[in-house]
């Protein structure tokens, strides 16, 4: 390994934003032709580091050397010229352009009115995409692509610009397990042709299965760089968090009681006639977690919106949904909530919080109709403050000032803890609906969120869990249903799930068979 030339060397790089030291004295060596992971919790400074390497920020001190030469980059343009490409977490594509148009965007002919030879480019894109096993139609409109395909376009965009060093910022955050597998094989084949891959992630499984070496960051500093062959998840977690972390919470065998939610023959047809839910039936009993596995787009979002009363009115519904014997179809979100249903939506920033409201205003959000918080036309500030502080303490939510600081300024993990705390602590809770409850959340917070979900279950609440993290699904669920094309193809019983936990990898593959 040590004989390999160095693609990228950072020496003593520091970067401050105001009083915050995002990166402190970071030194890092990335070998050419290797996959190097940068792991760390949210806010550890991983993204800042990537942005420094891509020329989006300039370091306050320290040097960056590319291929042995110290460089000074003023903008991504300089980075691209040096052969560095970046795939951002949020894709930067124009939806109503074709794939080819997106790829040449910014490097088309310099003369203003020169014609763009899209056809020629399309051909070379096709060749490029086949060489690395990333099939994509250059003439397709980008808006019609799946998330995985969009990511391929971003990678091709970098390769088309002759990138030798490819930075990927949390590339798996939006992908399904199958798409992740495909991405990883693409990345491995890129490495094998001599490209250097720098992947930023907080998922330790991925680090271990993909990367050659990993540098772990904590609070802006690199706490260590290790060979992935010689490390374990537990060691990496300790390096990331600074203490021992329980990666898998204890999950005592639950004692389920009577059914709380009964979904029977639920069908949902869109206006265009597509069957989104097709005779879907399942029940959830009090005191159990019913997990739903499935590739995105197989009816999860329709099921969630129907259960929350936010179903698109143009969709045609049939079948019944009973909550403790009361039908909930056709009811408003507020009515369903008042029946004892809590919901942690998938897209936290869009649906679960108001970004510019304070932390305490967000703890109130969705529960503002509860009498105990009310006073006259307004709210009882004293009671609300005390309640918000109590929850913040119990869920370890970190903030500067609960009444002033906007929610958007908190880290992703703390934001999600606000949502989870608020939804789990609802009085008279009967059914808890969780969609991707730990997406974009750091390990320390995942542990806490998992514990509190299990605690809620043990208090006799029925829990519906929809997540794309199979790992999480197997850890938490009492039973697991496999959703495919709008109906449950297979439901694993309590015994089967308990047995599956003993050989998780095999179980994950078995689930995978039922959802594709």
């Amino acid at each position: 390994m040590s004989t390999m030339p160095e693609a990228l060397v950072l020496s003593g790089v520091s970067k401050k934003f105001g009083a915050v030291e995002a990166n402190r004295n970071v030194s890092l060596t990335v070998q050419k032709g290797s996959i190097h992971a940068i792991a760390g919790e949210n806010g550890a400074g991983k993204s800042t580091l990537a942005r420094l390497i891509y020329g989006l920020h300039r370091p306050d001190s320290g040097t960056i050397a590319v291929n042995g030469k110290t460089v000074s980059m003023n903008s991504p343009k300089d980075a691209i010229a040096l052969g560095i490409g970046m795939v951002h977490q949020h894709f930067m594509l124009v939806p109503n352009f074709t794939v080819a148009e997106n790829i040449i965007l910014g490097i088309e002919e310099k003369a203003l009115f020169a014609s763009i030879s899209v056809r020629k480019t399309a051909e070379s894109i096709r060749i490029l995409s086949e060489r690395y096993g990333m099939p994509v139609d250059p003439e397709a409109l980008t808006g019609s692509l799946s998330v995985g395909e969009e990511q391929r376009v971003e990678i091709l965009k970098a390769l088309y610009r002759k990138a030798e060093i490819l930075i990927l910022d949390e590339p798996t955050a939006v992908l399904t397990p199958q798409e992740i597998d495909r991405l990883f094989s693409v990345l491995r084949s890129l490495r094998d042709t001599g490209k250097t891959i720098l992947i930023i992630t907080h998922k330790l499984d991925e680090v271990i299965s993909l990367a050659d070496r990993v540098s772990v960051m904590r609070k802006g500093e690199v706490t260590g760089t290790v060979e992935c062959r010689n490390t374990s998840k537990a060691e990496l977690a300790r390096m990331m968090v600074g203490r021992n972390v329980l990666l898998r919470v204890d999950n005592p065998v639950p004692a389920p009681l009577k059914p709380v939610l009964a979904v029977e023959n639920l069908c949902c047809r869109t206006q265009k006639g597509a069957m989104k839910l097709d005779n879907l039936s399942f029940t959830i009993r009090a005191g159990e977690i019913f997990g739903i596995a499935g590739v995105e787009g197989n009816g999860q979002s329709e099921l969630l919106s129907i259960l929350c009363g936010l179903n698109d009115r143009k969709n045609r519904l049939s079948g019944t949904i009973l909550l403790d014997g009361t039908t909930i179809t056709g009811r408003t979100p507020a009515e369903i909530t008042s029946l004892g249903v809590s919901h942690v939506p998938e897209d936290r920033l869009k649906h679960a919080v108001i970004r510019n409201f304070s932390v305490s205003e967000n703890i109130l959000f969705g529960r503002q109709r509860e009498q105990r918080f009310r006073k006259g036309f307004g709210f009882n500030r004293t009671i609300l403050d005390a309640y918000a502080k109590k929850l913040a303490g119990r869920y370890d939510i970190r903030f500067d000032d609960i009444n002033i600081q906007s929610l958007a300024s908190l880290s992703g993990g703390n934001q999600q803890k606000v949502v989870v705390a608020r939804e789990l602590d609802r009085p008279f809770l009967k059914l808890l609906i969780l969609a991707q409850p730990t997406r974009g959340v750091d390990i320390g917070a995942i542990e806490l969120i998992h514990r509190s979900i299990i605690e809620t279950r043990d208090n006799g609440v029925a829990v519906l869990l929809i997540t794309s993290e199979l790992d999480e699904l197997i850890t938490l669920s009492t039973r697991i249903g496999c959703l495919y094309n709008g109906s449950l193809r297979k439901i694993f019983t309590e015994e089967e799930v308990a047995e599956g936990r003993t050989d998780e990898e095999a179980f994950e593959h078995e689930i995978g068979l039922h959802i594709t």
Partner: protein
Amino acid sequence: MKTRIRHIFIPFAAVAGAGLFGMAIILMTGRDPAEIGSRLFNATLGSGYGMGQVLFKTTTLIFTGLAVALPFRARLFNIGGEGQLQVAAFSAAVTGAMLPSSLPPIAAVPLTACAAMAAGGIWGASAGVLKVRFGVNEVISTIMLNFIAQALTGYLLTSHFAVPSTEHTAETGSASMLPGLDEITGFFRGSPLNVSIFGALAVAILSSLFLFRTSAGYELRAVGSQPDAASYAGIRSERYLLTVMGAAGAIAGLGAMNLVAGYKHYYETGMTAGIGFSGIAVALLAGAHPIWILPAALFFGFLEYGGLAVGAYVPKEIFMIIQAITILLVIIGTARKT
């Protein structure tokens, strides 16, 4: 915390910047800015009459400013203050003139105010209905409603309500006239300033309490910040969009009370022209905060009357330019932070 300080600082910087710009233009017209400045201050702050005039203009601007600021909190841009004020002024004048003279002020004034609020409210709520029921963008619908307001009042005035060979309606009965502050205090002598200003202050304070201290205000701000999240939280945003547009129209309508019941006592062509649009500027300068509307309206009231008062020396258009520059600077200042 830093952004908060910045937010407060931006409007002041914008006002100062626009003032400097105004001085430069005055120089270019060959006048001495210092001389114009002292004339401006003498004409406005130097006499009770001048102050009264400024505060009179301020009063209407507070109402039309609030009519923009409140919907703004629900992410609606009400361009229709102009039309809402116009139909309200017409409605107040006609109602005031038709009330029987035996009616005491205690009944006549509220009835006139109700007529003004109802007319403005219907105009505002129409845009709300178009938005909620048919998805018509409120910017477009309020602009169209402005045209309709202008045409409708024009037609009703010339064909039905104008005093022959004039362009105004008959004078209202004395019972629906609001007392001027010069009669009450002896100060502001001869100026049109009247008790409406207390109404404006009250509505501004009530609006602020509503937005930041009530649960309905909390839900309204949630709807304005993130409509999708609001619906997840069980908030029925349609109801808020409709109500806030109606309320905004009614508040703009109260501005007509200042003009009709407080000053002219009749409706005449063009008496409301431009005040609704200035309300947009006031709301932008105030960052759509009901309390900050007060100083913002005062600033614009000062410029509007000041421009008239020194019109003999420099073109009053200069003051319109200063107003516009202020708003552009505010927008530049707030946009830069993203």
